[in-house]
């Protein structure tokens, strides 16, 4: 057993005295992330400065069999950065540099601790931006985005994080450094980068990330459409997509969410008697955007919109967006506590699923606000509760699960962008069968055989121990039998139980 003193000494040797936190009173800040329902103290928090230091830290911890996990800004909503096993937290916050930009080739290389919005801010002067835009973009890191495969409002048209990260330096859980992906074209061999993105810090640590950057669209138009009925808003979403326009974003909020955001610093003044509001943005070449915006307005009208308006200024557009992006935080103004859920459904089932959510809310007596990426069918039901009322926290968690099960039942998924973490780990069993869980554990085993790196997250333990299959025998006689066949034969169904 390694003593705490030994651990701290070794860490300080690698990253320097001032970059190791181990005093109990200072560790509390790291006891949870954006998911506050669980807390645990890490053994220590270590902040390396570069890939080599990360690799050295990981190698030492691996050799001493001490569990560890990576952490970015700690805004994750599913508990991925919580030190359940009193891990050593490897904080990437110091590694926050934009290493290089190549405008001609549309690439930027960043350290994982670089804040999402900072990247865009640094290249905006030249007319470029980084597309994935989680609402938390002013604080969350690109490393955290990679690990969660973060989404955002504009993913409808531009795709999520996995569509924008092309390569990374990656420290495996034994300290070995590898390169995954390929800055241009395809990596040769298996798509290891594809597995790493969205792996929630369970496969290793990204220490240098190459992303695509995009030229800012020439023109943008934003519409705010208010509907008496949710159904009309849902139909509008389908009709816009059906007409052949993919807006940059289509966001929806229901009445309760509107009440919350109107209590925030960004007051839009939504009427109290409408059921839904849509925020729709189209972008592209100036010559054509206006026409697209007109089409959008027309479709809103065909679907009984009460009022629809195009933003007249960048200030107005900014207000509408701020109002939308502050929605999670604003929920705190209408309820002492809330849980953010993150299910995805086929867009065409929107009306029906929102009705089911209303029923669940009524049955449970807990209010649920809905604010979500309607174009993607990515729901964010905000379940309001009061943790001071005995049993209500548990009830809220149960209600959250129930909502996710509805999403899976209509052919969707339990999480579209916030990740599984600790929060939804049991719901994974609702979505995946045992063999499918086992298949994912096998992937983790390939990367992280000792399970020291962020154990107990993302993939639940298998319900029953799936037998490890024996190595296959090679039956030479049969080889001979088969090599005698010259004809191409269609084989009819062999008995699948044999």
């Amino acid at each position, binding site marked *: 057993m390694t003593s705490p003193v030994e651990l701290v000494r070794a860490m300080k040797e690698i990253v320097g005295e001032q970059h190791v936190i181990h005093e109990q009173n200072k560790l509390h800040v790291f006891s949870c992330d954006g998911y506050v329902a669980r807390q645990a103290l890490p053994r220590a928090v270590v902040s390396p400065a570069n890939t080599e230091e990360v690799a050295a830290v990981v190698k030492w911890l691996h050799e001493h069999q001490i569990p560890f996990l990576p952490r970015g800004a700690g805004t994750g909503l599913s508990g991925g950065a919580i030190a359940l096993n009193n891990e050593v937290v490897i904080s990437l916050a110091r590694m926050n540099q934009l290493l290089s930009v190549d405008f001609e080739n549309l690439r930027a290389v960043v350290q994982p601790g670089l804040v999402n919005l900072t990247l865009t801010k640094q290249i905006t002067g030249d007319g470029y931006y980084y597309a994935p835009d989680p609402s938390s973009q002013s604080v969350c890191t690109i490393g955290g985005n990679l690990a*969660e495969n973060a*989404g955002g409002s504009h993913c409808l048209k531009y795709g999520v994080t*996995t569509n924008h990260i092309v390569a990374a330096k990656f420290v*495996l859980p034994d300290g*070995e450094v*590898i*390169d995954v992906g390929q*800055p*241009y*074209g395809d*990596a*040769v*061999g*298996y798509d290891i*980068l*594809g*597995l790493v*993105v*969205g792996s929630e810090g369970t496969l290793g640590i990204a220490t240098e990330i190459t992303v695509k950057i995009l*030229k800012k669209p*020439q023109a943008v138009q934003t519409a705010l459409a208010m509907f008496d009925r949710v159904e009309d808003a849902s139909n509008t979403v389908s009709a816009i997509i*059906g007409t*052949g326009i*993919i807006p940059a974003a289509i966001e929806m909020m229901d009445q309760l969410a509107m009440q919350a955001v109107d209590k925030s610093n960004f007051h839009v003044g939504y009427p109290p008697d409408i059921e839904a509001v849509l925020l729709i943005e189209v972008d*592209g*070449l100036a*010559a*054509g*955007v206006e026409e697209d915006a007109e089409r959008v307005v027309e479709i809103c009208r065909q679907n009984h919109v009460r009022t629809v308006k195009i933003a007249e200024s960048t200030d107005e557009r900014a207000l509408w967006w701020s109002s939308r992006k502050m929605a999670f935080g604003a929920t705190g103004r209408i309820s002492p506590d809330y849980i953010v859920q993150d299910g*995805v459904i*086929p*867009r*065409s089932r929107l009306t029906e699923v929102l009705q089911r959510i209303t029923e669940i809310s009524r049955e449970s007596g807990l209010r649920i606000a809905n604010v979500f*990426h309607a174009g993607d069918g*990515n729901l964010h039901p905000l379940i309001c509760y009061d943790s001071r009322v005995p049993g209500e926290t548990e009830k809220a968690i149960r209600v959250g699960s129930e909502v996710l099960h509805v999403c899976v039942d209509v*052919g*969707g998924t339990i999480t*579209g*962008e916030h990740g*599984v973490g600790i929060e939804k780990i049991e719901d*994974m069993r609702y*979505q*995946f*069968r045992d*063999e*499918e869980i086992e*298949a994912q554990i096998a*992937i983790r085993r*390939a990367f992280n055989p000792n399970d020291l790196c962020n154990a107990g997250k*993302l993939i639940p333990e298998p319900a029953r121990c799936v037998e490890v299959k024996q190595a*296959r025998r090679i039956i030479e006689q049969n*080889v001979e039998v*088969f090599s*005698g066949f010259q004809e*191409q034969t*269609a*084989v009819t*169904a062999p008995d*699948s139980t*044999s």
Partner: protein
Amino acid sequence: MLQTGSDYPAVLVEPADEAQTAAVMKRASEAGWKVKPIGAGTQLTGEAPGERVHIVLSMGRMNQVLDFSPSDLVVTVQPGVTLSELGRVLTAEQKMLPLDPWLPAASTIGGIASTAASGPRRALYGGVRDMAIALRVVYPDGTVIRTGSKVVKNVAGYDMTKLFVGSRGTLGVITELTFKLRPLPLHRETVLLFGSAEDIRLMRSKLVGSVLIPSRAQALSSFDEPTGVWMLAVDCDENERSAQYQTEQLKAWATEQSMSADVLQGSAADDWWEAMGEQALGADLVVRLAAAPTNWHDLAAKVAEFATRYGVDVRQSWAVTLGIGEVFVRGLAPELATQIVTELRTAATRVNGTVVIKHASAQVRQGVDPFGPIGRAGVLFERIKHQIDPGRTMSPATFAGGI
């Protein structure tokens, strides 16, 4: 004649459904028979010759479009559906899967996903990995696994879909694929610009630095034209007014550079691209290069120089905003083929690029690794292969790094 790369005869099995596929795999694993899944067999000439296989598992009978929800922009298909058949079904509802690799019409969606084949439209829409959202896969032991979810956003568990896309049948048999779709562009317009490679290099720079939205931007040299004559084809999938604006801008730049320009619209544009794809067929050697887009011009010059030096017929096609090029060579002795691959690989590696063979004779692929070096991520290839296919049942030694 099936080009499995194997000198030994194998039995061809054509399962009708997933249950049969699973039963075959289970039997094969137990017996130690090696299995090579194939679609239409159009891309096997891009693989390492591999070990002897006993069963060629042809997915051609599983050729149904299973579920198509236009309003969700999602389609689920069996692997044996051809790209052209799928295109027909989707077009009827004004939707598209923006995958346009230059392959024979018979090539199947299962094969395209397994090789991660892509074409010019990748410039705007990305590749198979960006479109495939869910799969059903039969593991070597017959277990059936679902990956992903049939909705456009999903982060539940590892993104296993990406592992199987491009894995060339070395891990499992894909029995069902779900893709997210795009609306068929409301308007189609292609601008053709003619000039030297240098003209196109300049044009590319202007294009990338602009607000234009090219959905394809392909620089082409042709077998028939004398070397040195190039053409840049730029598409716009935006609405008509935007397309017009883009066309005007490109034409203005062409005038500045004294390049001539031509504009194709609607079905004329479609037909032109189709003809380009057809011309790609029938070469003796097809090589794919990838590097930073600003390097395309130097690499293209290398290719042209080789062609002149040895008097071979070469045609090049470069996605200039992506830095992905395909080189088609006709009338080439195998020794020269090996040499061109090796030379290009050296040149590309110098700029951190890659070169893979898409199509070559077995002799050539024996002489030079079709995939080339695999880099430091390669340590994981064996480990993943071992987890999923410990008996090395699936397509042994046909893929990168000897997998």
